[in-house]
């Protein structure tokens, strides 16, 4: 205890020398604080984007291979490009992988209900012609399986609830198959209350069997495929579709409030099928229950998140083994990740380099100062040793002195560093963004898009891609935060710094014998 007391008194006894040492330590600590805060915040941002871009898997068609396939299958010189599809069952099967941290499967199907009126249903009826083949009742146009209707049944689509855009107004979320929740507007307009049962109709489709001849088929003909009866529908282009109507009887268990806009785009014409208030939310299993494995209609969208971006090759191999065609690419959006994160990485690199340089230079200056200081204090050490103080205690006292100075610098440095880090970060990041943009403008097409449709592709019941983001912009703002982890790192660095300076004292002291010091002095 007396060693600490003596150390604290010594700080006051040798003010000018300690202020000089303190100034150097303060400069190092301040730089370290700013650099580490920026570095750790940047790491968090990078980690977040890595998670977002580099972990999410995109299964996108390789258009070159699609074209080649189409050319290969062409018999009359005409190239018919057929939309590549991944069966929804297969998409769900891919989700069952040890390489995935998480997979989110959702589904949707357009539907109609003759018993209730959809929001904007009148506008839909006015704007649409009745020329298309109608299989389902209630006024919706059913051009292809699951693609059109006044309502959209969504399976396991809770993202808006997680985002705070939707919330329960009454009742509860569906817990069992056959349960649903509806929007408050739909509920109010039709006086639907919790407990009511709504009956929706929707269409399922199946591929035309190759062994059946449809050359003389007429709209509305009935055919049986796999023990199920389908209605023939022929488009203006002559494409034959086989569809059957299915019924969803859903019990309303809750009503939700919707904060989103009614339409995804304000320029869109009013249409019941596109109005988000007509979305009926249920479970994915409910939607899939009415569907046979070989049928289309329920648009299944599965988003896969790898445990680690490096596991992509293994996941790719696994999905190939599970039957994914070679015409699909399995990617993560590394290009967008790099584009977005590059300035932050630059910022991180600058901050760390700066910190290392300051620490090295600062440590050298500190070493010299400590060395000079210990020479000045040689006599004092000699007296203490002559009084019987052990070398270890003398060294400990000197270390406590420098540690106290470091602690004071640490507190001030943390305060000032936290305040200064944000403007410093903004300035450096701005430079990095400008540099990145200048670089991009000089070399167009620098690989920001590697494959697939920029806006993502909706391919026959499975949303593929949708994530290779051509318009991904570099991070231009970074909210600096001082985390507990950063504080801990700074404290460790400060203690190491104090110990480093203390080592000089300790090594010198071990060489000093009190009699020699006192004789030199005398």
């Amino acid at each position, binding site marked *: 205890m*007396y060693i600490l007391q*003596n150390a604290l*008194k*010594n700080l006051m*006894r*040798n003010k000018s020398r300690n202020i000089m040492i303190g100034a150097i330590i303060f400069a190092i600590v301040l730089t370290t604080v700013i650099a580490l805060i920026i570095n750790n915040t940047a790491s968090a941002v990078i980690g977040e984007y890595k998670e977002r871009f580099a972990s999410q898997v995109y299964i996108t068609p390789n258009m070159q291979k699609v074209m080649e396939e189409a050319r290969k299958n062409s018999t009359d010189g005409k190239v018919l490009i057929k939309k590549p599809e991944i069966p929804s069952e297969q998409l769900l099967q891919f989700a069952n992988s040890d390489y995935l941290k998480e997979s989110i499967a959702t589904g949707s199907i357009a539907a109609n209900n003759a018993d209730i009126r959809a929001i904007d249903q009148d506008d839909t009826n006015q704007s649409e012609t009745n020329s298309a083949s109608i299989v389902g009742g209630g006024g919706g146009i059913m051009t292809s399986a699951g693609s059109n209707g006044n309502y959209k049944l969504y399976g396991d689509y809770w993202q808006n609830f997680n985002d705070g855009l939707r919330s329960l107004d009454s009742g509860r979320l569906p817990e069992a198959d056959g349960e649903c929740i509806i929007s408050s507007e739909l509920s109010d307009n039709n006086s639907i209350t919790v407990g009511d049962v709504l009956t929706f109709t929707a269409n399922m489709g199946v591929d035309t069997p190759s062994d059946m001849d449809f050359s003389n088929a007429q709209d509305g003909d009935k055919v049986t495929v796999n023990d199920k009866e389908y209605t023939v529908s022929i488009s203006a282009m002559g494409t034959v579709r086989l569809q059957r109507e299915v019924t969803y009887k859903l019990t309303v268990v809750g009503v939700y409030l919707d904060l989103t806009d009614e339409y995804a785009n304000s320029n869109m014409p009013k249409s019941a099928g596109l109005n988000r208030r007509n979305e009926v939310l249920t479970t994915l299993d409910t939607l899939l229950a009415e569907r046979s494995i070989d049928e289309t209609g329920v648009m299944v969208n599965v988003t896969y998140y790898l445990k680690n971006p490096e596991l992509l090759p293994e996941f790719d191999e696994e999905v190939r083994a599970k039957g994914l065609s070679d015409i699909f690419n399995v990617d993560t959006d590394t290009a967008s990740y790099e584009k977005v994160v590059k300035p932050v990485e630059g910022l991180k690199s600058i901050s760390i380099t700066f910190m290392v340089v300051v620490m090295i230079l600062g440590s050298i200056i500190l070493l010299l100062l400590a060395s000079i200081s210990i020479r000045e204090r040689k*006599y*004092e050490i*000699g*007296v*203490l*040793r*002559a*009084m*019987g*103080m*052990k*070398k270890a205690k003398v060294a400990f006292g000197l270390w406590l002195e420098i540690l106290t100075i470091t602690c004071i610098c640490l507190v001030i440095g943390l305060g000032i560093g936290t305040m200064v880090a944000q403007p410093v970060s903004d300035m450096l990041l701005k430079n990095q963004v400008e540099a990145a943009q200048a670089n991009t403008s000089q070399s167009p097409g620098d690989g920001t898009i590697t494959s697939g449709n920029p806006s993502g592709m909706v391919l026959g019941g499975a949303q593929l891609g949708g994530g290779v983001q051509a318009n991904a912009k570099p991070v231009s703002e970074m909210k600096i935060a001082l985390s507990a982890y950063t504080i801990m790192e700074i404290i460790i660095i400060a203690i190491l710094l104090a110990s480093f300076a203390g080592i000089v004292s300790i090594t010198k002291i071990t060489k000093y*014998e*009190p*009699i020699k010091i*006192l004789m030199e*002095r*005398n």
Partner: protein
Amino acid sequence: MDVLTLQNVTYKYEGTKKNVLKGIDVTFEAGKVYTIVGKSGSGKSTLLSLMAGLDICTDGVILHGKSDLKKLDRDEYRAKGIGVVFQSFNLLTNATAVENIVLSMNISESHEPDKKTFAYTLLEKVGIDKETADRKILKLSGGEQQRVGIARALSHNPGIVIADEPTGNLDTDTEAQILKIFTSLAHDEGKCVIIVTHSKKVTTIADIIYGMSDGKLVQMKQK
């Protein structure tokens, strides 16, 4: 009781061939005042630093009681076993007089409950008042520093007190006062007091006087 025994003690400085101390045999007892006189350079201060545990002899043995100083923890010995008054004071110049005393007591792990009060009392005993005691050593005169040095040597109540010219900077009155303290330490408190001096007045209080000449110690007078 023998508190300090030197047997055939020889010393030479590193890198030199000449022995500064040449086979010194002497025993110091508790309860007596010893003075060592001799010309400058005769080896008095060297002998003192060996006895103070600041250095070790080249040959021979120095026993503290029955323990060989070479085998003892000499830091512990200096902190608790012996009190040294240096000719050049060797005080912490940036600290106050009282801080010097309290620090010495802390190093020696003194059990005194109120070290600061004890330090003031001790300083008063050697003629340093409270106001002076609170001044930094650098602000004190040579005589005052000398007295602080004496007080520090006595602060941890050592069995042996060694003083190198302890009255060299003192006026006649203070010298008499200090000598009285040394005499009392030996005769009343049973301590062994060894004083290296040129002063004839100091030798008057000695029970035994030794003369140091050419590295040898010779007993000159015994009361």
